[in-house]
C-alpha cells in the first residue's frame, strides 16, 4: 500500500468514526466522552483531508482550488474502484 492508498484508507476510517459518533450524539447529546471523541477525530479527519487534497486530488469541493487544470474534474470517480 503506497502513501496515497494508506492516507485514503485512514481518512475512510476517520470519516466512519465521525459518522458513527454523530448518529450516537443525535440521541445522546449530553455524553461528554462521546463529544470529546467526536472533536478529537473530527479535527484529525479535517487535517488529513486537507493534506490529501493538496498532495493528490480534492476529496471535497472546499479543497478544489485549481491553477491550470480543474482539479475536481480530474479526480477519480470513487464508484469505479481501483481494479477496473
Amino acid at each position, binding site marked *: 500500500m503506497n502513501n496515497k492508498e494508506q492516507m485514503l484508507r485512514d481518512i475512510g476510517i476517520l470519516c466512519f468514526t465521525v459518522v458513527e459518533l454523530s448518529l450516537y450524539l*443525535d440521541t445522546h447529546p449530553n455524553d461528554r466522552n462521546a463529544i470529546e471523541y467526536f472533536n478529537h477525530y473530527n479535527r484529525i479527519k479535517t487535517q488529513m483531508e486537507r493534506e490529501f487534497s493538496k498532495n493528490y486530488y*480534492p476529496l*471535497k469541493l472546499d479543497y478544489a482550488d485549481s491553477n491550470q487544470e480543474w482539479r*475536481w474534474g480530474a479526480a477519480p470517480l470513487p464508484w469505479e474502484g481501483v481494479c477496473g
Partner: protein
Amino acid sequence: MWSYERRLEFPVNIKQPNAKLAQAIISQFGGPDGELAASMRYLSQKFATPYKEVAGLLNDIGTEELAHLEMVGAIVSQLTRNLSMEEIEASGFDKYYVDHTLGVWPQAAGGIPFNACEFQVKGDIITDLMEDMAAEQKARSTYDNILRLVDDPDVCAPIRFLREREVVHFQRFGEALRITQDKLNSKNFYAFNPGFDKCENCNG
C-alpha cells in the same frame, strides 16, 4: 443542502465480474428494502417530525443511506464490468441488459421498478419510527440473504459493512422512539399526534 465527497463510505474494489450476483444485489439499490427507499423514507419523513433531535437523526441517517446507495450501485456496476455476450446470456443478465445495457437502474431483483409505495410518510412520528425500525431489520435480512449467495471476499466485505449499518440504525431509531415517547402523555402515547394536533402542553 448536500455536498459530495470523492470517496465511498467503505471501499468497493471488485476484480471478478459476476452478473448473476449483480442481479440479486441490485435489490438493495432499488428494491422494496433497498437503500434508495431507505434514504427517501427518512429524508421525506423529517419534514413533519415534531422533535428537533428526532428530525436531525432522520436527516443524518437519510444522508448516510445515500452513501450506501452509491456503494450498492458501485458493487452492481463493478460486478457487470467487462462481460462478454456469452456471459451476459449464460448468467440470465440478458433480460436486464436489453433495457439498461450496463447502466444501474433502481429495480428489485425480480425486475419490479422502484416505487415510492415501498415506503410511507405517515406524518405521525410513532408510526414513522416503527416503520423505520422495521425497514432497518428488513434490509438487514436482505443483506443476510445476499451474504448466503456470496463467496467473493471483495463483495462480502462491503455487504457486511452495509449489514452492520442496518443494525446500528435500528438501534438509533429505537432511541429516537424512546425520546419521542418521553415527550408524550405516558398514560396514552396516542392521545394526540404531535406532528398535527396543537396542544398547549405538548410543544416538547
